[in-house]
């Protein structure tokens, strides 16, 4: 009945079709990301009231929390794409997995930096060996390992497959690290500071947060599509469709 969906997905896996598809979608995703991001920043930095305890310093969560969500989300996308790449050897999945890694690493880095900036006035320290901070740091190392392994191979597809394998090992490892770090911290009974829980949050603080979350998602799509398009051109540089695109560019 509805077999156009698998058919469409199947077609989308072909580099030239995805190239055009991503090219059409990318400006819209980028525009949405900028619009939503600007709205969320206005809502978060200007409209939302100051926190009764933390004053204005809490406003960094409008960057920090969406970045933290994205750092995990992108890793999930990367692991799923890696699995598809290894099992079905789809070229596009390899490219998506490998081009997700630097974006995810950037989000993780932003999370760590903003968290550290917030921690200085709130906890009185740039860094504490809290379970969640440590897990996030380990996540950054996982991303860097994947990127490093990908680039250490001469052959890009081989490097992509090896790094995809590492990404899958990593996603098994993330819960283990999180669990063990939790256990470690409770054993040592370190500082009693806790990351601000957004559970009880008033609406005028919540909507900028959720809007920013949507903005980061769209930014990820836009950034990923841009990177994938470039990568596809480089990878398929010997193919006919790339030559056609190059000739059209040369004419105009």
């Amino acid at each position, binding site marked *: 009945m509805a077999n156009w969906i698998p058919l469409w997905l199947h077609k989308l896996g072909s580099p030239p079709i995805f190239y055009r598809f991503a090219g059409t979608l990318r400006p819209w995703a980028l525009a949405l990301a900028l619009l939503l991001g600007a709205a969320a920043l206005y809502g978060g930095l200007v409209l939302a009231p100051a926190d009764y305890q933390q004053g204005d310093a809490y406003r960094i969560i409008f960057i920090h929390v969406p970045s933290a969500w994205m750092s995990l989300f992108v890793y999930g996308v990367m692991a799923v794409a890696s699995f598809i790449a*290894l099992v079905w050897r789809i070229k596009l999945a390899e490219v998506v997995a490998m081009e997700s890694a630097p974006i995810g690493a950037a989000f993780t880095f932003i999370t760590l930096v903003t968290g550290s900036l917030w921690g200085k006035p709130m906890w009185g320290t740039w860094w504490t060996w809290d379970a969640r901070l*440590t897990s996030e740091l*380990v*996540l950054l*190392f*996982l991303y*860097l*390992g994947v990127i*490093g*392994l990908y680039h*250490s*191979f001469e*052959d890009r597809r*081989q490097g992509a*497959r*090896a790094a995809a*394998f*590492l990404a899958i*090992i*990593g996603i098994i*490892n993330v819960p*283990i*690290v999180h*669990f*063990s*770090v939790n*256990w*470690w911290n409770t*054993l040592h009974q370190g500082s009693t500071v806790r990351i601000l829980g957004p559970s009880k949050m008033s609406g005028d603080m919540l909507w900028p947060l959720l809007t920013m979350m949507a903005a980061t998602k769209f930014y990820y799509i836009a950034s990923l599509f841009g990177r994938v398009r470039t990568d596809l051109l480089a990878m398929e540089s010997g193919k006919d469709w790339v030559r056609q695109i190059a000739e059209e560019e040369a004419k105009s």
Partner: protein
Amino acid sequence: MSQAPLAPACAALLRRDLTLAWRRRGDIAMPVLYALIVVTLFPFALGPEDALLQRIAGGVVLVTVLLAMLLALDAMFRSDIEDGSLEQLVLAPQPLALMLGMKILAHWLTTALPLIVIAPLLAGMLHLPAAVMPVMLLALLLATPLLSLLGAILVALTAGTRRSGMLLALMLLPLCVPVVIFAAGAVAAAQQGLPWLAPIAWLGAALALALVLAPLACAAALRIALDA
């Protein structure tokens, strides 16, 4: 082609790797020497107070052993890649995972075992109480094979690349965080007179899991890395 039975093939591979290691005895001594040097440097950096050294002894010995193993990890498959015998192993009729398991065992025997033998000396230099020593050795006996197995997967992944010692360290760090936490946790608990069986049991469980899965993952990784 007559297919060699499994047990003699495993024994032959183990004997070959151990003979090769024995012919180059100097290489076995290097990680031990490295661990000795690192542990010697700690009192110079931190001061010779007994109380401080006693408190950090367990952790320092564990991390030193880990780093020494990392130093030797790079060489696990290197000579076999250079002379092409690893490709022969991949082509052999015996299951690759089992053969790699034997290679990992040989590597553990030649690098980790000497480190475990010297660990009481290292701990003694830092005044670790004698009562804690058995717990530390037990933790090391469970943690080092785990590190060898996890490290082997990563070494196999980098088999097709240029020299990549630093990359190996970067990739191993996230994997060895839980191992270090539990091994050091057991030693610290024993030192404080607390029950230390739980982290040891976790290490044992992880080792049982890794013994089964890591050689398979190692074989898959090697096939990816050598598939040119």
